[in-house]
């Protein structure tokens, strides 16, 4: 085991897969000479050269489409979109081509393409640069979606993503790039998709946290234990498609209560979908409706105090958990900014 930062773990995964498989190549803006906007690809151009680590012009839709074409004809491209915000420009190639080519052409080709993109608010980047869009990708059949929250998972899931035959949307978190965590030394240490991680065991309430929210949920669980004598079970799904629903259901059947925490908008969000799935499969085991904590249902404002209340923090998670146990007066957390009313 080695302790690495999240961005270093990603760098390690890319380096290992580039070494392992000649067909892997990287495409993205400023990934080569600049070393990547978030330094994830630092040093890779030096080791692997321009043929395999390619700086692209600012042409998101076309870069993704080029990745699709290359993936259809024998390569294993890893496209970096500088942030998830710019993926909106590439939605045609992502949905109509990356996700659909295999199916619509009757299974004649695969599209083993990985599209990496960081997301997250909290740095006052304002409305067009603060999106959390995992729900939009989860929505699309044909795509796999990974949302690693730890360095170990970032490295392991990225390796799996690159080796997988399906197109993968690999969502990193801008605020996690600097966090440290244990990463196995084995260069074949992949983390399977569809296996959730139970971060913390507990029997009173299940909290599912997406991406960074898994870590925020862990801290909320500590607060719940210390201040309210509540033992929360925190689950990090790691991948949204495929989803390890079985682990989540097993937990909910034991705790009878569930909170889903995401940074994206509430309507049509990950929590909305998961709440529906839990209702369908474990209705009789629920002692309270599934609670959702999400980003506020507004464009992300620039001004610091507004931005702070427009995305979720520990107190909202604590309050939502208490509400499922009937121990909070105000259970509104869905898309509501704290203190806005």
């Amino acid at each position, binding site marked *: 085991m080695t302790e690495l930062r999240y961005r270093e773990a990603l760098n390690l995964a890319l380096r290992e897969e580039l070494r392992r498989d000649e067909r892997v190549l990287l495409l993205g803006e400023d990934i080569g000479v600049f070393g990547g906007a978030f330094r994830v690809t630092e040093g890779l151009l030096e080791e692997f050269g321009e043929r395999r680590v390619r700086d692209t012009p600012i042409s998101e*839709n076309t870069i993704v489409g080029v990745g699709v074409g290359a993936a*259809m004809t024998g390569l294993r491209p890893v496209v970096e979109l500088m942030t998830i915000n710019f993926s909106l420009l590439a939605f045609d190639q992502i949905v*109509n081509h990356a996700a659909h080519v295999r*199916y619509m*052409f*009757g299974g*004649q080709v695969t599209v083993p393409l990985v599209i990496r993109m960081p997301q997250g608010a909290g740095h006052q980047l304002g409305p067009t640069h603060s999106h959390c869009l995992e729900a939009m990708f989860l929505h699309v059949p044909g795509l796999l979606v990974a949302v690693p929250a730890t360095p170990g998972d970032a490295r392991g899931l990225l390796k799996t993503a690159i080796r997988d035959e399906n197109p993968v949307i690999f969502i990193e978190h801008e605020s996690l790039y600097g966090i440290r965590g244990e990463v196995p030394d084995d260069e074949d240490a992949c983390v399977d998709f*569809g296996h959730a991680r139970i971060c913390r065991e507990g029997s009173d309430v299940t909290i599912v946290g997406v991406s960074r929210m898994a870590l925020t949920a862990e801290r909320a669980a500590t607060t719940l234990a210390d201040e309210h004598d509540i033992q929360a079970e925190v689950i990090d799904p790691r991948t949204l498609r495929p989803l390890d*629903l079985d682990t989540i259901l097993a937990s909910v059947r034991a705790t009878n209560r569930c909170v889903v925490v995401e940074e994206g908008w509430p309507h049509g969000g990950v929590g909305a979908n998961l709440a529906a799935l839990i209702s369908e499969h474990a209705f009789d085991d629920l002692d309270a409706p599934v609670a959702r904590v999400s980003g506020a249902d507004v464009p992300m404002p620039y001004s610091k105090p507004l931005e702070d209340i427009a995305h979720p923090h520990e107190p909202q998670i604590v309050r939502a958990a208490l509400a499922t146990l009937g121990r909070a007066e105000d259970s509104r957390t869905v898309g509501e900014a704290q203190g806005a009313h």
Partner: protein
Amino acid sequence: MPDLPEPALAREWLATMTLIRRFEERAGEMYARARIGGFLHLSIGEEATIVGSARALREEDYLISTYRSHGNALARGTPPEQVMAELFGRTGGCCGGHGGSMHMFDLQRRFMGGYGIVGGNLPIGAGIGLSSDYLGHDEVTLCAFGDGATNQGTFGETLNLAALWRLPVVFMVVNNQFGMGTSIERHSAVTDLRRKGESLGVPGMRCDGMDVLDTRTVVAEALHRVREDRRPLLVEAVTYRFRGHSMADPEEYRTREEVAQWRERDPIPQFAHLLEREGILDAAGREQIEHEAAERVERAVQFAESSPFPAPESLYEDVYVLGEQVHGRYHG
């Protein structure tokens, strides 16, 4: 005038154009009889562009086209049975009924689709060129799209990237004078499409898209240069579609006189007359070609009619590649 190929090959070009024409006419009939649903974009009038360009390709070269691509598939050798069955939505279709008219595909023959989004295929074409380049192969990709697509963002982005990275792609603009229902004068500030890629680093050539020999000659030249220089080129094929944009198009945006004028340049009789003048084809030979085309299309329709519809249980097949990593829920 460029040299005709040897007689057997010249007759094959005529036969393929004729096959495409008869196929498309029949597909139009089948659509009217509700055997085919959705949108149907016919290539009637564009046969010289389709066959001329296809016959300039080597087997290992790639072809990628648009939603108007039945002719591309047929020209590359996809059996008419598989194309018609795909139109009928049957399992015997080249895509098992999943794609339909706009999404044909034949990997074996390196016909890489079939795309419903205007301009959507350009980046994919560049990606295929990138693969060839990366893997050290000398194959070239022919990426065909319409005049309308030259206004889509992907045109500028893709040509820039292809020129920058020296991708082995021939970008063929099939200029049939219309972007759907809008004439080229009303949709493109620059109508000399041969030049539209210059500012992006891609020089252009033009061919007479109603003349299969000229198209073949010019496209072959472009492919050769791209293969040698490893730089992209653009070819503008000036052609015309005799039917509407799709079967649903009432064609209110052009006059019958205009269509009639272009019909006088119908590529098929034009080429047939040339072969007759050159002594390569006689009346019997011409009759034979017509007869065989009609027969092949008839067999295709029969095959399509008797090919089964996909079973409901097959709905979820091929959405994902499920390998050893099958964990969790892929669908709900």
